[in-house]
């Protein structure tokens, strides 16, 4: 055996999707730089920043999971010495990494800009993190739906639910008084509600991931 098959499959997804990642990072960086001008540019930059992550979250499951079935390349992959659960793990590793690299890059860049700039108050950092977790949760849900549901229809349904729920998440978070009160604070305030929301978001991601592995391990027919 030449190395781990899981690593080979994960690397393969990286090679096939690197252009999408580069484009997402580029659009996200331009959006963040635009936001530095303040005013309307801040609003536009903020929107583009989130849209770039949301679009990536929808496109990755489509291009790496649904298209593999639709374009019938899955049979090629499953002819290799790999089980369905190893395929699932390889997909999880590669797609998570494909999403996390631009997500983290853009988030770190945003934090650096906030720390060194004067346009966005430092008190908005916890809210930025909580809001940035929403595309991550949505990506996780769409990815799991595509993997377990095995169809474009299920992915489109998940995508509609996620994309139409962002505003609700933003609305609910900004309406929590103890979070909203610190938005314009000169320093980041990590109070109990902020920590609770972040933990709940991480817990939701862990739950979706666990359920995905559970359902995949119970599948009897893979193609």
């Amino acid at each position, binding site marked *: 055996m030449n190395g781990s098959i899981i690593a080979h499959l994960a690397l393969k997804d990286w090679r096939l999707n690197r252009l999408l990642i580069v484009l997402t990072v580029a659009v996200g960086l331009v959006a963040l730089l635009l936001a530095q001008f303040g005013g309307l540019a801040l609003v536009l930059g903020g929107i583009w920043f989130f849209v770039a992550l949301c679009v990536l979250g929808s496109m990755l499951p489509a291009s790496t999971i649904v298209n593999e079935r639709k*374009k*019938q*390349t899955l049979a090629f992959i499953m*002819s290799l*010495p790999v089980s369905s659960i190893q395929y699932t793990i390889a997909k999880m590793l590669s797609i998570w990494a494909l999403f996390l690299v631009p997500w983290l890059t853009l988030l770190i860049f945003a934090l650096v800009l906030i720390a060194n700039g004067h346009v966005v108050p430092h008190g908005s950092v916890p809210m930025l993190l909580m809001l940035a977790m929403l595309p991550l949760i949505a990506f996780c849900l769409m990815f799991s739906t595509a993997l377990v549901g095995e169809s474009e229809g299920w992915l489109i349904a998940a995508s509609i639910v996620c994309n139409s729920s962002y505003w609700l998440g933003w609305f609910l978070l900004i309406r929590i008084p103890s979070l909203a009160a610190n938005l314009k604070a000169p320093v980041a305030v990590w109070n109990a509600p902020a920590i609770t929301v972040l933990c709940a978001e991480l817990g939701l991601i862990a739950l979706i991931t666990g359920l995905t592995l559970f359902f995949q391990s119970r599948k009897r027919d893979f193609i």
Partner: protein
Amino acid sequence: MTDLALEMSGVSKKYRYFTLDKVDLKLPRGQIMGLIGANGAGKSTTIRILMGLVHQDAGEVRVLGHSMPAEQVAAKWDIGFASEDMRLYDAMTLGWHMNFIRSIYSSWDASYAQLLLKRFGLRADHKIKGLSHGQRVKSALLLVLARKPKLLVLDEPTTGLDPIARHEILRELTEVMANEDRSVLFSSHNTQDVEQISDHITFIDRGRVIDSMDKEAYLDRWRRLRLEVPLGIDLPALPGVIGVHQRGRLAVATANAFVPDLANAYESTGARVQCVENMTLEEIFVANVAHSREEVEV
């Protein structure tokens, strides 16, 4: 080490509109088995179960000594699988796919891969999306053959190919079999392709294996007898004859266990045997399926 490349016993799989029913299959090492069936007969389901991609509801499956689907990873190191509905990545080149497979399999034979590129008229720097159907099938086969698997499982590999491409692929498969340790399971609804390269032939219909034996045994045992039957004579049901179609004074009897005495037996009833004809594999397949369906309906 077992002498069987693959073995299925009592394998069943139930879907809403289709059931694979107690399939038994044995392929000795070093042989080529042709699996012939009409569209929807159960060939692909059988092959997917063999590959561990679909789990059987009942029955035992062993491939190269490994129990399937539990030991599919170990088994698949030595299985080369290609199917008619398998596609490569459109946006990537054949060379990229070759490197990908080479990085996984230490058994990859680079010089053989180059030889196959030349024989199949392919170029490594061509993107898959620019290839014709025949070139895509050849590319998939190249990726399978160059890693020298012990068992080749090919699900309708020649479907949709032009005669030249079919000939090239069948010639390559025949050469591959020069290695006596290598086994092939080859499914098709094209009996000519199967007849050309197989040692052993299995007919499958409506989810059931209806017959399985050596190719030569089929060709030896199946005959068509053309008879002239005088008025007033009824042809008897003779052992080894699966069907008689009579129109006026002419009758055609199809035998699946022909012996020379069969012609004498008809002569003794007063009928005259005009000729005894060999049957092609396609004719044997069609007659076998029709007979099997009649038996099921009765």
